[in-house]
Structure formats: structure tokens, C-alpha cells
């Protein structure tokens, strides 16, 4: 699903984001991406979503070489990737329902067709009863779960999560991780960036470790 081949990313000014990173995340796999902050986790995520372009090397996502992907096709790539952010990036002037419906509207569904899917996604994260509330009225954990619902509502083949539990206490973190595992069990490929090593170790999945932009270890599932 995701294949990196000798990928480097250097920023203007000489800062190195990634250096010669190669790995292959197969379809249906779940993996963690760890490393201290500044190690390149976010850079890697951004490259997969084409928020940034590589400086050297090749990336394949869903069988597509990202180098060959035209700018105008980027939005269509992103529609197949569900993203979850640390600060969940919800729109605070819209209800929970409208936040989750956003990817569907973008993909061209009429508002009528959206409702069923949005409710199913909210049901999955246990927030069906809060669809009419605004994000401000939710707790941090709930907001994160809304972000999760938005990421999966369009049934993406790949979910990327950048520090999805960054602001949550251990119990809420575990709940969120459980949700990711659930999605993975239905065939969705999941890549989670997290610096919470204890949590990552407990989950017993493949762990990719970055350090100063280099991939220093790739532990398969024990």
C-alpha cells in the first residue's frame, strides 16, 4: 500500500526531514511510526499525502508512483486516504455531523446520500448521540473520535494518523488505538505516528523507528 524507496526530503535551508528511507507497508497491515519529535514522522506522513514532494527517491501509494502524480490529481489521491491529526483539525463552525460529512460532500455525494454513511461512521466511534453538537461541546477524546469518524467515512483504503493520542490520557489513548485496530481488522491499512513508546510497545504491531530522518529499525510483529 505504501512503499518508500530511498526517499529523502531536504528542506530549503539545509534541514533534513528524511534521509534514504525505504520500507514497504503491505495492504491490510497496521504499523506504528515512532521516534522523538523532529525525527521525521510528520514529514513522512506529509510525503504520503503529497502535502510535500520528495527531494529524492520514489514513493508508491496504492500502486501509484507519487512522483508521476500530477498536482491536479492530488485531491483524488487524498480522498482514498483517511487522515487523523493530533489536534484533530475539526471545523468549529459546523456540527459534528457536518464535520464528518465533509469528505463525502467533497467526493460528490448529495447531502441526502451522506446521512447514512455519516451515522454509520459516528456509530463506529460511539458518538451517534452527539451528531448535532458543535465540536466545542465535546471533550478532547470525543473530538479525536470525531476526527476518526471523518477519516473513515469515505471508506478509505489507508488511514494515516499523526500523533492521534498526543493530548489524551492513557485510557482514552487505548480506546482510540482500539478503534484503529478495528478498522485494520476490516482490511484498512493503518499507519500511526506516535512518540508514546510504552503505548506502541503494548499494541504489539510492526514498529518503524525514525531517528534524525533515518529509518533505524523496522520491528515486525512479535
Amino acid at each position: 500500500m505504501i512503499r518508500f524507496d530511498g526517499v529523502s526530503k531536504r528542506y530549503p535551508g539545509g534541514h533534513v526531514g528524511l534521509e534514504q528511507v525505504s520500507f514497504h507497508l503491505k495492504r491490510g497491515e497496521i504499523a506504528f511510526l515512532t521516534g522523538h519529535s523532529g525525527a521525521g514522522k510528520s514529514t513522512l506522513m506529509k510525503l504520503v499525502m503529497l502535502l510535500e514532494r520528495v527531494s529524492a527517491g520514489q514513493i508508491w501509494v496504492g500502486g501509484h508512483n507519487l512522483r508521476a502524480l500530477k498536482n491536479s490529481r492530488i485531491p483524488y489521491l487524498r480522498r482514498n486516504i483517511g487522515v487523523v491529526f493530533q489536534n484533530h483539525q475539526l471545523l468549529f463552525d459546523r456540527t459534528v455531523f457536518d464535520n464528518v460529512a465533509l469528505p463525502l460532500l467533497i467526493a460528490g455525494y448529495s447531502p441526502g446520500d451522506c446521512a447514512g454513511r455519516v451515522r454509520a461512521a459516528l456509530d463506529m466511534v460511539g458518538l451517534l448521540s452527539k451528531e448535532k453538537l458543535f465540536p466545542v461541546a465535546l471533550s478532547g477524546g470525543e473530538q479525536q473520535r470525531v476526527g476518526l469518524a471523518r477519516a473513515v467515512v469515505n471508506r478509505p483504503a489507508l488511514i494515516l494518523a499523526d500523533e492521534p493520542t498526543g493530548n489524551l490520557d492513557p485510557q482514552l489513548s487505548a480506546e482510540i488505538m482500539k478503534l484503529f485496530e478495528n478498522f485494520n481488522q476490516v482490511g484498512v491499512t493503518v499507519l500511526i505516528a506516535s512518540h508514546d513508546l510504552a503505548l506502541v510497545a503494548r499494541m504489539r504491531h510492526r514498529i518503524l523507528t525514525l531517528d534524525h530522518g533515518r529509518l533505524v529499525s523496522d520491528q515486525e510483529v512479535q
Partner: protein
Amino acid sequence: MSLFNKKSERQRDGRRHKTAEDKVVAGKAAGNDTHKRGANRQTAATLTLHSLISLHQQVGKDAFSRLQKRPLASLLNSLLIAVAFSLPVLLFVLVSNIQQLGSTWDGQPRISVYLDNEVSQKVVGQRIADYRDHPLIEQVAYLSPEQGLQDFQQKAGLQNVITSLGFNPLPGVIQLTPVSDASFGQLDDAVATFQSMGGVEEVRLDRQWVQRLQAILTMLERFSIMLGGILGLTVVLVISNTVRLNIESRRDEIKVISMVGGTRGFIAMPFIYMGVWYGVIGAILAQIIVSSLLMVLSNEVTNLAGLYNSEMVLSGPSLGVMGILLLSGVFLGALGAMGSCYRHFQALVPD
């Protein structure tokens, strides 16, 4: 996009726990897998006319309610646009009113033959006969000095001046109406001939002032169009600036939409609708401004026209002009918004 369409490997069986939550996911999954191919196809298929129309309706409504949320600011912006619109329209309407006035004289230039003061009645009769026989002249009317004096006294209210003169300064006038297909060249020749006839003081072809008026009006009309162009640019800039502020304040939203796969067009749509709304509201306000100003002016115009013995009524902007104004509002609004989106998305939308 046909990315990710290959059938995914499914659940790894050893890891399943049948919790309640899991069942929901599993139920979803069953649907998910069978629909996976369909779902992607459907994504393209759902971009039907119906969903497109309902999307536009919703975005249009949202954009309008955003304006409503800050009524004063929106009104002031729209007024600015309205003022820019109303100036050229007002000028244009006034010019076309005067043009209409001019056009009633435009078609048939008249020739006035002013006679010598001491001309005899016999010569006058001869001249009238000459003009009647002339192939270019259709109608001949004689206005004696006495009649002229009467008319003059009635019309201009200058009774006292004339009486105080003690004599009638007005010459006899023969007014000639040329045939309608006479060219100005032919008429100029005829005027020269008439000038040389006995008993004639002066011959005037009264097209000159019509021509001058026409020239002035044409110039004013051009000017109003030019002014329209300049102020149209103002409208574009005002709208583009307003939209820019809006883009700034909705940065986060733009980023999120872009990250979940919104195309630039999708992201730009609410802003373009906002520009169009501003343009339309500005155009409507401009019509109200122009109509009210003309209403105030119309009394004065009727008075003035009365003095010139005319029954001119000031007519407001025609339906055509109003339509053009409204279309300009839509067009300039969209243009300003698109310009703004084009410039400011560069930094915000990562693709």
C-alpha cells in the same frame, strides 16, 4: 480515481474479539467489502447533475448566510460596490434621455430662410413658390414678422423687452422641411442656392446644433462606458479584497478541506459565491440608488422641459440596462473572487 481498488486482504482471524463495538464494525465491514469496488465507482457516478445542483444550492445559501452573519460589514461593502455601479449607470441613463430628446429632431433637419427686413410681399410670394417647386423641399411654411413677434412674446415671456424696443426686430422666416431622403450634401448645395436668391438675408440648416449635441452625447456616452470600465475594476478590487479577508479568516477550513481531498474548485466555490452575492447585492442597491436619484431629478427635469415647451419625461434605466448591471454584478463578483482565490490559494492549498 481508481487507486486502491484491489481487493484488500481481510481480517486476520486470530485477533477477533466479538465485543459489541466490534460487531458494528464487522457489520459495516461486510457492507464495506462488497461495496468497495462499487463505492469507488459510485464516487464518480454520484457527481450527477442532481448532487451538483444541490451542492451549489447549499454552498450558495451558506455564502449568503455568511454575509447575513455580519450584516453591517456586508452592507457597507455592498454599498461601496453599489456606488461604483451607480455612477456610470446614472450618467448613461441621463445621456440616453437627452439623446432621445435630440433624436426627435435628428431625423428631419429644417432649413430656415431669414428674409430681408424690407422685402416686399411680392418677393416673399415668389420665394415661397420657388421653394415649393424645389425637388428637395417637401413643406414650406411662412412665418411673417408679426406672427414671429406674437410667438416670441408668448413663449419666452419677454413681452416687456420687445414692447420697450418700440419696433419689431424679427425678420420674416420661411421654414422649409426637406424630403426625408435628402442627403446633407444635397441640402448644403440647396442652401447655397437659396442664399443667393433675392430678398434672402440668411439661410440656416439647423442640423448643426443637432450634430453638436450628438457629438457631445456620443462623447458623454463613451465617457460613461469608460467610467463604467474604471469603476468596474474598482468593483473587482473591492470584492477581491473582501474575499481575501474571508480566505484569511477561513485558513484552517481551507487546509482541512484540502487535506481530505477537496479540489481547488471545491474550495473556491464558497468564495466565488460570496463574490457573486456581493456583486448582485451591489447591483440591486445601485438600481435603487439610481432610481431614487432620478426620481428626485424628475421634477426638475419636467420643470426645465416645460420652459423649453417640451414634454420630456425623465425615464429610468431600461430593463436592458438593469439586466446588464445585474450580469455585471455576477460577472465582476465572480472575477474578483476568482482572482483572490487564485492569488491566495497558492500559499494555503498545498497542491
